[in-house]
């Protein structure tokens, strides 16, 4: 019976090819737009370091003055430099910690034919590379020994390596930042981050172009591109900390360092407790005047919060869903009209012995084929839709972003293709229930008398 129903379904689709194509096109356009937006939302909302994102935690402590306002966790201050060093010195087996702040500089190489490049960078510690796992093409990050020695080493991005060294293995080469010479010990590959989480900006900007040890940066007073949350007499000079007053900054209560910890599942509670104990201890030194408030939040929770507040994407998703719904309604209108033209035939088939379920099966097969073809064409539409959106993103970034940075954010992967197929078929099927129900309820005797 399936073969017969399939033959009838295919015949029906061939009978009115323009109507069939219109139905499929309507579904495809709606599904294509929906899949485009869904893919952007899905890819853009992917949590980095998926294999261990639940174990990567942002650490926050509220060291503000008593009179400070209550703020949401997302706006709570960063960490002070002295707390950063104290936390790093704690003995926490199984726990990795790192921190970073932003800097900038002009990179120079020996070759005078290469133009110097002014770019942003991250100052960080050795575990940055083991915790956040940026991909290396050449070399590695630095270790604690190099960090403690204060040696001038640097890890540069693929973009920098391409521009300064033509893409060759530059490990061992020197670069100059101002008057300082640093040795390249590692070159990163393109690092795809949906959002630049490690500096807490959660921006869609590309990761930094070079990374240098905090010991070197502090010793040589490299500029600090940070927002300093200061109190207790330092608020008025906080801007000066960007380029000077390093000693005062180190001893101040200014918060500006983003602090991260990688904590195994079974130690999260004890880590929070140790943080609590640490603040208790600091309180006896006259610090942390407020009631103890700490946050140890993993990447998953942070991305849930950030994705939920992505108003543009949320509105865009809603519009695409509504548009898809409208397209489906239009398609189902065409299907209904087509099916209703067939009542005489169905009436006859029922009279000749077709059961209701046979009629239903025949039309379900037809609708599934329509949904399948709609899904197939919808994927083609989505492919070009994503290509278009990627070009727009490239244009709107003034081409500061590169195609290879953006490609993963607009990639139609297997899961999205499967999703589009299933959505196309299921939605078409669900919305076609009414036309099929109307048709299969055609009484056998109702149309047989008509001429």
């Amino acid at each position, binding site marked *: *019976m399936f073969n*017969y129903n399939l033959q009838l379904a295919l*015949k029906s689709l061939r*009978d009115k090819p323009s109507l069939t194509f219109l139905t499929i096109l309507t579904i495809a356009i709606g599904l294509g737009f929906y899949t485009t937006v869904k893919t952007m939302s899905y890819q853009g909302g992917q949590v980095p370091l998926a294999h261990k994102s639940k174990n990567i935690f942002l650490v926050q402590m509220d060291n503000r003055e008593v009179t400070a306002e209550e703020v949401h966790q997302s706006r709570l201050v960063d960490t002070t430099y002295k707390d950063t060093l104290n936390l790093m010195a704690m003995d926490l087996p199984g726990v990795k910690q790192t921190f970073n702040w932003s800097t900038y500089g002009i990179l120079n190489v020996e070759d005078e034919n290469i133009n110097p490049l002014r770019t942003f960078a991250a100052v960080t510690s050795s575990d940055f590379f083991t915790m956040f796992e940026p991909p290396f093409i050449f070399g590695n990050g630095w270790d604690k020994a190099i960090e403690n020695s204060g040696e001038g080493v640097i890890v540069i991005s693929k973009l920098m390596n391409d521009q300064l060294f033509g893409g060759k293995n530059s490990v061992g080469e020197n670069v100059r930042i101002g008057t300082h010479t640093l040795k390249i010990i590692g070159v990163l590959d393109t690092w795809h981050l949906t959002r630049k989480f490690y500096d807490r900006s959660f921006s869609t900007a590309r990761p930094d172009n070079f990374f240098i040890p905090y010991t070197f940066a502090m010793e040589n007073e490299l500029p600090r591109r940070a927002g300093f949350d200061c109190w207790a007499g330092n608020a008025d000079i906080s801007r000066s900390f960007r380029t000077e007053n390093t000693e005062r900054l180190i001893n101040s209560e200014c918060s500006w360092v983003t602090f991260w910890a990688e904590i195994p599942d079974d130690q999260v509670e004890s880590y929070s407790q140790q943080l609590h104990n640490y603040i208790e201890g600091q309180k006896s030194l006259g610090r942390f005047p407020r009631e103890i408030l700490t946050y140890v939040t993993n990447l998953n929770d942070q991305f849930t919060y950030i994705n939920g507040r992505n108003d543009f994407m949320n509105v865009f998703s809603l519009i695409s869903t509504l548009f898809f719904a409208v397209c489906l309604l239009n398609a189902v209108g065409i299907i209904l009209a087509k099916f209703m033209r067939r009542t*005489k*035939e169905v009436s*006859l*088939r*029922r*009279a*000749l*012995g*077709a*059961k*209701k*379920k*046979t009629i239903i099966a025949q039309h379900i097969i037809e609708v599934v084929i329509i949904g399948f073809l709609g899904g197939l064409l919808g994927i083609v539409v989505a492919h070009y839709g994503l290509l278009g959106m990627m070009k727009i993103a490239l244009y709107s970034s003034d081409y500061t972003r590169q195609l290879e940075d953006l490609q993963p954010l607009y990639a139609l992967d297997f899961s999205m293709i499967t999703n589009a197929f299933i959505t196309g078929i299921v939605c078409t099927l669900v919305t076609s229930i009414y036309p099929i129900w109307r048709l299969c309820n055609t*009484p*056998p*005797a109702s149309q*047989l*008398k*008509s*001429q």
Partner: protein
Amino acid sequence: MLRMENVSKIYRTELVETHALRNVNLHIKSGEFVSVTGPSGSGKTTFLNLAGALETFEEGDYFLDGQNVKGLSDDRLSEIRNEKIGFIFQSFNLLPDLPLFDNVDVPLRYRGMSTKERKERIEHALETVGLASRMKHLPTQLSGGQQQRVAIARAIAGSPKFLLADEPTGNLDSLMAQQVMELLEDINSKGTTIIMVTHDDQLARRAHRNIQIFDGQVSDIEKAVAKDVMRTA
């Protein structure tokens, strides 16, 4: 073979209740050729629809080939229609975009027969109506009389016990009507029970029995001159 006991059919809307058939009591034996006559709107088609299990009814009992069809499920009624009844309609009701072979194939498909058996039955049925050479033609390529013969082939292909014909010659000229009538008589002579609704008194008189329906009530008139020996059920 076919027995109706106090069968009534009422069509209801919010405002109106129409008694299409009232207390029909009828017994048609196996092998009979029965004509059904009556003025327009008298309930002839309703009677045929009930007899063909195309519609359900509210009151009474209807035994078809010994089985009471009252209260049977929709699926079972479909099976009964498919296995025991052949339908012939005034407007032929062929599927215009299917060749004759496929048109005759429709009821056989729903019976789940093998390809070989279906092919044999279709070829035999089309041979019986004299259209074996045209099985690849579309209905639109045939005359009205030929189309009705295809409809008859479709009706007999499954070897049903009953043929229900609703004004089978209504759309045909007298010559073609004559041919179709002869074909039906020939089929009847081989044992198939035929119930035929007609407006044509001449054709009605060629049946063994004539049933008249007037205002939903049936009067059963035994023909004075029986053409043939009626078989017992």
